[in-house]
C-alpha cells in the first residue's frame, strides 16, 4: 500500500480497513476453532455459496449508488429460473436459453427504469410492484410447478468446475472485474457517483441522468439473471419461488460495504468485502453448529455495527 496517502485518502479507506480486519479476524479465529475451515474444499464451498448473493449485490450497488433501491431482483431470479426450466425441458439449446433469459431480465430492468427514471415513481414503490408482478409471472408461467433440468451443459453453470474452481465462482469474479472496471475506469461509471451525489448538478453538467438511472436497473436485472441461471443449474430445476428474499441479502451486503443508501458515496470493493464477510460468517456459524435463529440475530447486528463504523468514520471529517 502506498504510504504517502494523505489524511483524506486515509480516512476514506479506513472503514474498509475495518472490514478487511474483521474478515481476516474471522478467518484467523475460525482456522483455530474448526479443523476443516481452512481446507481448500471448504474455501471452494464458501466462494460458491457467496457467488449467488455476491452477483446480485454487485448489481444492486449500481442502483444504491444512485440513492435508489431495486427490490425486484429476487423475483427476476424466479422468472429466469422457470423460463430456463421450461425451455430446457422442451429441449432447447442451453446457450439460446441463456440469451432468452437475458432478454427477459432486461425487460424487467427496462420496466423498472421506465417507472423510476421517466415516470418519476419512487424506486421503492416501483420495484416493489415489479417484485410482486415478477413473482406472479413466475408462478403463472409455471403454474406453480417446478421444471426438471437435465441438460448437462446447463447444469455445469451451477455445478461444474474449471480446474479446481467452481464455475459460479469464476462467473462471480468475472462480474466483479467487469463491474469494477465499468464503475472506476469509465466515464459511464463516474456518472453513477455524480447522479447519486447530486442529480441536478449532474444533469446541468451534461450527464444524461435518466439514461444512467435506466442502465442501473438494467445492470441490476442482468446480475439477477446471471444468478437465476446459476441457481437453476445448481438445483437442477426451474423453481418459481427461486430467489425469494435475495434482494434483502444483497442490500445488506451493499450496506455493510459502506455504500450510502442516499447515493453518491460507496464502492464496489466495499460491497465485495460485504458479501465475503456475510458468506464467511454464515459458513463459520454453520461449521460451529450455531442455531439458525441466532445466526440471523448475528447477521442483523453485523449490519448495524458495520454501518455505524462507516458513519462514524465519515462523520469524523467534520
Amino acid at each position, binding site marked *: 500500500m502506498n504510504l504517502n496517502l494523505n489524511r483524506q485518502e486515509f480516512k476514506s479507506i479506513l472503514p474498509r480497513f475495518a472490514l478487511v480486519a474483521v474478515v481476516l479476524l474471522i478467518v484467523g479465529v475460525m482456522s483455530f476453532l474448526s479443523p476443516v475451515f481452512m481446507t481448500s474444499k471448504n474455501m471452494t464451498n464458501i466462494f460458491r455459496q457467496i457467488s449467488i448473493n455476491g452477483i446480485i449485490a454487485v448489481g444492486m450497488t449500481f442502483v444504491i449508488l444512485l440513492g435508489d433501491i431495486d427490490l425486484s431482483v429476487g423475483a427476476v431470479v424466479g422468472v429466469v429460473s422457470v423460463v430456463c426450466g421450461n425451455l430446457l425441458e422442451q429441449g432447447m439449446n442451453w446457450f439460446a436459453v441463456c440469451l432468452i433469459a437475458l432478454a427477459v431480465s432486461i425487460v424487467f430492468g427496462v420496466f423498472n427504469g421506465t417507472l423510476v427514471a421517466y415516470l418519476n415513481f419512487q424506486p421503492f414503490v416501483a420495484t416493489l410492484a415489479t417484485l410482486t408482478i415478477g413473482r406472479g409471472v413466475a408462478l403463472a408461467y409455471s403454474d406453480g410447478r417446478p421444471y426438471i433440468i437435465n441438460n448437462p451443459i446447463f447444469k455445469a453453470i451451477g455445478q461444474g468446475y474449471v480446474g479446481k474452481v467452481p464455475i459460479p465462482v469464476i462467473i462471480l469474479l468475472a462480474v466483479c472485474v467487469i463491474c469494477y472496471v465499468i464503475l472506476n475506469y469509465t466515464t459511464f461509471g463516474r456518472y453513477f457517483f455524480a447522479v447519486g451525489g447530486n442529480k441536478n448538478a449532474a444533469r*446541468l453538467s451534461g*450527464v*444524461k441522468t435518466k439514461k444512467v438511472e435506466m442502465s442501473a436497473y438494467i445492470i441490476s436485472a442482468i446480475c439477477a439473471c446471471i444468478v437465476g441461471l446459476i441457481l437453476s443449474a445448481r438445483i437442477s430445476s426451474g423453481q418459481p419461488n427461486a430467489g425469494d428474499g435475495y434482494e434483502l441479502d444483497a442490500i445488506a451486503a451493499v450496506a455493510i460495504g459502506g455504500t450510502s443508501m442516499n447515493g453518491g*458515496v460507496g464502492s464496489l470493493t466495499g460491497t465485495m468485502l460485504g458479501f465475503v464477510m456475510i458468506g464467511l460468517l454464515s459458513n463459520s456459524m454453520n461449521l460451529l453448529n450455531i442455531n439458525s435463529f441466532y445466526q440471523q440475530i448475528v447477521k442483523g447486528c453485523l449490519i448495524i455495527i458495520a454501518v455505524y463504523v462507516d458513519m462514524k468514520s465519515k462523520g469524523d*471529517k*467534520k
Partner: protein
Amino acid sequence: MANDNYVLEAREICKSFSGVKVLDHAGLTVLPGEVHALMGENGAGKSTLMKIIMGIYTKDSGSIVMNGQEVEFKGPSDALYAGISMIHQELSPIPEMTVAENIFLGREKRKIKGLPFMDRKAVNSSTMELLERYEMAEYIKPTMKMKTLNIAQIQMVEIIKAVSYDSKILIMDEPTSSLSDKESEVLFKIIENLRSQQVGIIYISHRMAEVFQISDRISVLRDGNFIGCVETESASHQKLINMMVGRELERGYPQNTAEKGEVVLELKDMCSEGVFENFNLSVRSGEILGLAGLVGAGRSEVMQALVGYDPLDSGEIYLEGEKIEIHHPSDAIKNHIIIASEDRKELGLVFGRSIRENVALQNLEQVSTASFLNKPLEKKLCNSYAKEMTIKMNSIEEDIGSLSGGNQQKAVLAKSLMSKPKVLIMDEPTRGIDVGAKSTIYNIMIDLAKQGIAIIMISSELPELIGMADRILVMSGGKIMGELTDKKEFSQHKILSMAFGGVLNES
C-alpha cells in the same frame, strides 16, 4: 475586557480540525440591543465561531459567557432555550406546514394537556401577536403554507421562530444573500425593531454597504485570529478591507480591455410559458454582458433554459452565426456554452465527491478514450485548472463540500473553463464569497474576456454589475425591460427603475 453589560461574551476560543487550527484565541462580545457585524474572508473562522457558540461544535479551549455566567451548550437546542438562535444561510422549512405550525414545531399548544390535539387557534393567534409586535404582519399570515413563501418571507418566519424562544442573541449568517434590495430594506427595518427590543444581533455579511448601514460595531476575523473590533462610525471601507485581508486591496473593478469581436451567441424570441417571453440577446466575443433584474425576474431561468436544463417552448439559438439545437445540457456543453450556476449546492457541485471528480464531471471525454478514463491525465488536467483558479486545498482528492464558499465557486469556474467555453454564463459569480475571492474572480473574468470568451454575467449586486459589465440588459417579470449600452450611463438608479418596470422613479 470585563463588562457586565455584555449578554454574550466568547473568550479566547480555540478550535482545530484534524490538526489544523481554525480558530486561534478568537473572541466576540455582544451588547443587548446592538447589531454587531462579523466580517472576514471565507475560511476566516466566522461560521466555526458561530457553530461553537451554538453548541454544534465543541471548542478545544476558551469560554463562552452569557450574562456573566459561563455556559456550555451540548447542541443547538440547548443554545435555543438559553436564548441564542441562528438564522442559517440555507433555510429549511417544512413545506406542507403553515407558518404558525413551523414556528411552534415541537412545542405545539395542546387543546387538552397530554393529548396530541393541536390547538390551531391558540397557535395562530400567538403567531399573529409575534408578527405584529415585530412589524411583519403585512408580509406574512400565520395560516400561509411554507411552500407558498419566498425566501425573504421564510427568513422572517425563522426570525419570528427565534424571537418566540425569547432569544436574547440572534445570529444571522448572510441574511441578504438571496434577497433583492427591496427585501433587504424590509429586513433592515425588522432588525431595527429587534434592536429596539434589546435583542443583540450578530450579523455576518460580506456586503460592506449594508454592514455600514445597520451595524453598531464591526469585528473582524482573519485566519482564525481576532483582528479587532471597531465602532462602525469610526470605520471606513478601506480600513475594514485592510483588517480582513491584511494588505491593501485596490478599490474598484478591473477594466475589461479585451477587444470585442464577432457576435458569438444570438438568441431570438426565446419563450417559456409563464417564465419568460420574447427574450432576445446577442453577445460578442470578449464582451461581458450584464443581466440585471430583481430576484424572480427570470434571469437564471432563461439562462438555464438556454443550456437545456429547463424546458424551452420556442426560440432560436445561433452560435457563431449557425443555428443550433439544445435539448439537454450535454448539447450546450458540446457547443461550448457553459453555465456556472448560482446555486453551488443544488446545481453546481456534487457534494461528497472530490474536487477532481467535480471539475472533470462535464469534461470526461477530454480525459478518456472510448469511454475509458485516463486517470493520470484527469488528475493532471484538473490539478492545473484548480491551480489556475487558485483554489485553496490540501489535495485535489478533498471532498468539495469541505471547501469554503469562495473556493467552491472557484471550483465551479475551473470546471466551466475546462469545457473551453465560447460563451460563459456566470450566475451570481460572487454570491456569498469574501472580498479577496471576489477580486480574484473579477480578474479571472477579465482574463477570460481577453481570451475571446463571451461572458454573460447575472448579478444582484448592482455595483458589481456596473463595474464589470460592458453592456447591461435589465429584466423584469420574464421580459427584457431595457438595455444600457454605454458604460458612462450605467447607474443603479436607471437599472432599478427598469427592474421595477419603470414604476420606481427614485431609488
